[in-house]
């Protein structure tokens, strides 16, 4: 394409009203022509600037938040599919279930065999606002029916268990009879457990018991250290989600239902999820777990499995 030909097509290319073939030829010419290159860039900037003059039209807030949440979820899933190796077997012996789906931070360069070092921390994705109510709760859960006193008692038991495990592991490490890989793995596990203890034992920890009405005792707890913004969710005795479904955790505030990731409990219904997420001290109203399609949803759509008021 000659300079004259290209020059006569610059406006059409900038407006995206030239054919693909013409546009390609013009861009090829403009990339090497000191006159057409800047001219094309200026025209494209003009076209884009015209777009900024359009009167503001507000997108539906809920749908906008949904789009944002979906985008981040897709991006995160894509990153993790590139970064994360095949998830390792759940650490059932120590009660750490597999973490799947949303919100997990991937460890860079992880193509090594999975170790606990690679267990990922959950960061809740974008808040999602929804304009429809939760799906009807099969057992009509009462979000404000959980007694805090019970939660604190059970918390103590849980903390004791974890502390005891850590002590045993430290002894094993100190004895020096572990191979290096196992030692590394155990050290990582210790670190993780320490974080867990900190999250549960801090002076400003809020505990939310998660229950369904039919269960005699809670099926899980969410611990929120409001100083460090560490979150730890533990479940026990949670039934497996239906085939093709996953559980999804929601932090419920007055303004949003914030997805905190998806998970599948182990065969005994146990899960441990950890996150670091800043939330205003009095913002949390409840924590809920719903059953959602694999991969999770930007806002709750499925039945609420357990819930606890904050």
């Amino acid at each position: 394409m000659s300079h004259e030909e290209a020059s006569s097509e610059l406006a059409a290319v900038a407006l995206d009203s030239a054919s693909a073939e013409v546009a390609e030829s013009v861009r090829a010419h403009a990339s090497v022509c000191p006159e057409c290159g800047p001219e094309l860039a200026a025209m494209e900037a003009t076209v884009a600037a015209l777009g900024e003059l359009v009167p503001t039209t507000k997108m539906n807030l809920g749908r906008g938040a949904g789009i944002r949440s979906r985008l981040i979820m897709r991006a995160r899933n894509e990153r993790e599919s590139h970064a994360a190796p095949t998830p390792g077997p759940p650490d059932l012996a120590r009660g750490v279930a597999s973490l799947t789906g949303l919100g997990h931070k991937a460890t860079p360069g992880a193509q090594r065999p999975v170790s606990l070092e690679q267990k990922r921390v959950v960061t809740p994705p974008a808040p999602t606002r929804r304009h429809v109510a939760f799906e009807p709760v099969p057992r009509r859960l009462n979000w404000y029916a959980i007694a805090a006193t019970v939660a604190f008692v059970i918390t103590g038991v849980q903390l004791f268990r974890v502390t005891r495990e850590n002590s045993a592991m430290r002894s094993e490490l100190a004895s020096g009879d572990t191979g290096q890989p196992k030692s590394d793995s155990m050290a990582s596990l210790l670190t993780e457990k320490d974080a867990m203890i900190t999250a549960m034992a801090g002076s400003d920890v809020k505990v939310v018991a998660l229950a369904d009405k039919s269960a005699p005792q809670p099926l899980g707890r969410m611990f929120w250290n409001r100083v460090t913004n560490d979150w730890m969710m533990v479940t026990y005795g949670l039934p497996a989600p239906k085939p093709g479904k996953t559980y999804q955790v929601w932090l419920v505030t007055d303004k949003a239902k914030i997805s905190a990731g998806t998970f599948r409990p182990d065969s005994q219904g146990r899960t441990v999820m950890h996150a670091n997420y800043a939330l205003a001290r009095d913002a949390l109203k409840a924590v809920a777990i719903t059953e959602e399609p694999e991969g999770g949803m930007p806002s709750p759509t499925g039945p609420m499995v357990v819930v606890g008021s904050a």
Partner: protein
Amino acid sequence: MLGSEKNPVVDSRPMNPSEREVSYSSQTRSNADDVALIRRMCDADETALGALYDRWVRSLYSLVFHLLQDADEAEDVVEETFWQAWKKSSTYEPSKGAVSTWLLTIGRRKALDRIRARRRYREDPVGGDRTFADMAAPGLDPSEETEGSELRTHVMAAMKELPAEQREVLELGYFGGLSQTEIADRTGQPLGTVKTRMRLAMQKLREPLSMHRRVTE
């Protein structure tokens, strides 16, 4: 190009909803900040995608809604546009223009694809009969209006000074995505005349718009 491939990173930035609400209303939207976000997107930092979304969704949605006149389609285009920005973040070249130019160009192109498809399959009117005069209407958000009203006044003044035939070809290309040949057919003018009119119109509008961009960048 800002990068060649997406590398996983550990991101510890909290996403506090209240913080995000603030960013909606107090955004300064400098291009340097946008470029920094694109760099983070190149490093597979999805929170940067969220931040870029917060900064530009309103402008992008307004544009594609204005073109498409359909909220559902406009939302689809917004999502497709930001997803493409994520996927192609490494191809963004700062030397070729602002991030907003890049984003709005992608969005407008996708909206025009839909308009062209409508035209092919449903014989809808060109670009929903949109004109630049429609842009003179005030927006729904008073704060945004304060930001853009002066510019709008200048550009509308420049637009009014355009000869009607130049403005017509620009509108057919801008809102309808018509090729110059299609515009020539529609207006009954020789192709060369259409090309000349389009180029002259673009050149006349460039000055007030480029002044605006210099200020905001």
